[in-house]
């Protein structure tokens, strides 16, 4: 009986460790992640006003999109286009880098989905977020 309990416990430990080893560390820090996060933080100060005005929203696939160009002065629309394109490039690179750092490049899609939910959860009140194909104001 005692041996059976030990066996079951060993099996449990094995299962837990197997599960743990398959978990992705999305907080992982590599020079690539640091460079990308810095780049995104710098850009965020420029993008924040466009999130607040509703011009730019957070998409359900972990990216940002120009949602309502009419909310941006005409002369700034090209700049917003550039910011959105650069932000999406960094976001895509970030998901790939985290997957790579976890030694599982094939996890990129799952990491992207996790980040998508996280960005939307952390979005400030008044920002526009996408869910089910439609936009809603948080």
């Amino acid at each position, binding site marked *: 009986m005692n041996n059976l309990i030990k066996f079951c416990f060993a099996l449990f430990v094995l299962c837990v460790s197997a599960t743990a080893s398959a978990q992705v560390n999305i907080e992982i820090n590599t020079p*690539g992640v640091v460079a990308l996060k810095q780049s995104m933080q710098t850009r965020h100060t420029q993008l924040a006003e466009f999130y607040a005005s509703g011009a730019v929203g957070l998409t359900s696939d972990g990216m940002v999109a120009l949602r309502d160009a009419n909310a941006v002065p*005409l002369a700034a629309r*090209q700049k917003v286009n550039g910011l959105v*394109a650069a932000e999406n490039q960094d976001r895509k*690179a970030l998901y790939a880098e985290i997957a790579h750092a976890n030694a599982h490049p094939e996890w990129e899609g799952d990491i992207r989905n996790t980040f998508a939910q996280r960005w939307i959860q952390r979005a400030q009140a008044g920002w526009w977020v996408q869910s089910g194909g439609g936009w809603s104001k948080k």
Partner: protein
Amino acid sequence: MLNKTIIYTIIRLLNFCLSGLLSFCLLFLSAPLYAVQITLNVADVAAPSFTARGIKVVLAQEGSAEFNIDELHLAGQTWRKVHVHCSEFLLSSTRVTCDKGKLDAIPDLPFTFSYEFASQRLELRFAAKANELWQVSADFRAQPWRATILLRNAQSKRLADLLSPDWPLPTQGALNGTLMVHGDKTGVSQINADLQLADVAAADASGLHAAEKLTGTLHVDAARTGQKWDWRGALDWQGGELFWQPLYLRGGHTLLASGQWDGAQLKVTQAVANLPGVGKVELNALWDVKKSNLLEGRLVGKNLTLAKGFTDYAKPFLEKSALSATELTGLADVDWQYLNGATQALLVKLRDVAIVDGEKRFALHGINADIPWHAQVQSVAHVAFADGELMGLPLGATQWQMQMRGQDFILPTATLPILDGKLEVSDFRMHSVNDMWQWNFSSTLTSISMQKLSAALHWPEMHGSLSGSIPKVSYQDKLLKVDGTLLFRVFDGTVLANHLELLDPFGRAPRLSGNLDMRELDLDLLTRTFSFGNIQGRIDLGVNNLELVSWLPVRFDAKLASSPGKYRKRISQKAVENISSLGGAGGVAALQRSFLRIFETFGYERIGLSCALRNDICTMAGVEDNGNAYTIVKGGGIPAITVIGYNRKVGWSELITRLKRVSQDNKAVIK
């Protein structure tokens, strides 16, 4: 009591045959006569490009009239429940007039209307506050018949309901000018328009196509022969701004154009556009209007100023490419030819052009080039530049001849001067597969002075040279791959770099992997270069599985060991202190407390240290391992010194910090 009379009639109005059932309902209210009114119900009225259904006209005794139309089709537009009120309505055998009229849809724009049956003259005049006027005068008896539309401070937003909602709709601003239309029985045959725009704004629903404060003039003359129109136009866009995703342009443009229109295709036979700050371009085009498709096109520009031309017209399309932060200066001649859904030729001449990357990754100056590219025909491009820079390395003057055929570019041989050496490139080939560009070449790097290289890259000054033979460099799917070995001759030894791969070289986080094999580096030269305290001897250093992300190491297996062979082996007290301080400040203190401090240098037998870097942790080992301790410097000779490390797991960032002389914990001791 109600009396009803029904009259069947055909009426002629505006020279169009209008037919319908007109029911005059004469409502004679039984009691007072002053309340008499006439109601006319007309089932429908039809004419070419005009129908009205469910018309009800109520004529009141005091002379006013109410018109209610259930559905009105005019010029492709449909209005429902149209209501018109005429304060003074007159219908006689010679004319019909409506004074002080009002349309429910535009209550702030009262109108007057008159039509004389005999002369077939029509006058329609909408006038409002601020001197706004929309006036139509038409003479339908003239041959050809003619109509003149006069606009004065006409608010452009009133046109929004008449235009397709898919297009930018005017929201403010005024129109002035005249529009003259002539026609015959087959329809409109001539149009002459002279319009001035004042502070016009327009936008589509998405905001991706919009304009603000547009001012300018538009002149159009068009005449029809059979089914074909010949037209000529002049546009002078004087001010305001336009955003047409992804282009943003300001006023100052002019366009003169002429061509034909046959109802399906718009042909621009000749057009000259003046682009401010860029130059003049001539263009012609054939546009399939129904399919919104360019069938043929040609654009020719000479001496175009690239600085503004590239920024305004090319860069907005390159936001997602490596050229998104690029600036161009200089002059260019361009001849672009388009046919059958594809570019057939692009002939470009560049004069004294400079291309500079905003992120300082590359730059080329003094570019002169003749690039006559054809989709189907083989041609040769001549490209020369005066100097440049690549990843901080200066490039010298050179010229290339490139063979081109479609999306295949071949450079049989080319020389790229780098510092005092050069990269001899052979068999460079670039081609597009499934819209993805890939390229490869083989090359030889002739000797570059390490002194110049280290100065250019802001490294400590090194001596020696860099050279190498590279059988193949290839780029495909964002991966730059170097097959072969790069040879550096530095510190009187050799460094071989192989299996080099660089993923996403132009991205934010490029990833470099490869192996380095360094042999017999002179420690005397090395330690002097890096001010580490003098060590004499030679070392081998192997770095396998090296991986850099954003040019910082994230993984490697490095092993440093004294080179085999006989040579002088001495280590200075300063060097011992520095090695010890990598483990913490205590080691230094231990040495300084001991009698060994009286010696300047010590003998050693071997030096060895390895580091396996994973997840920012360096797992250390030495020449000899004894449990948790490992020997970094094994003593030998007199006086001898041995340095032992005790901490096998060292944070990489921390180690780098310590290397920068920030000493902390004491983990190494001196025996």
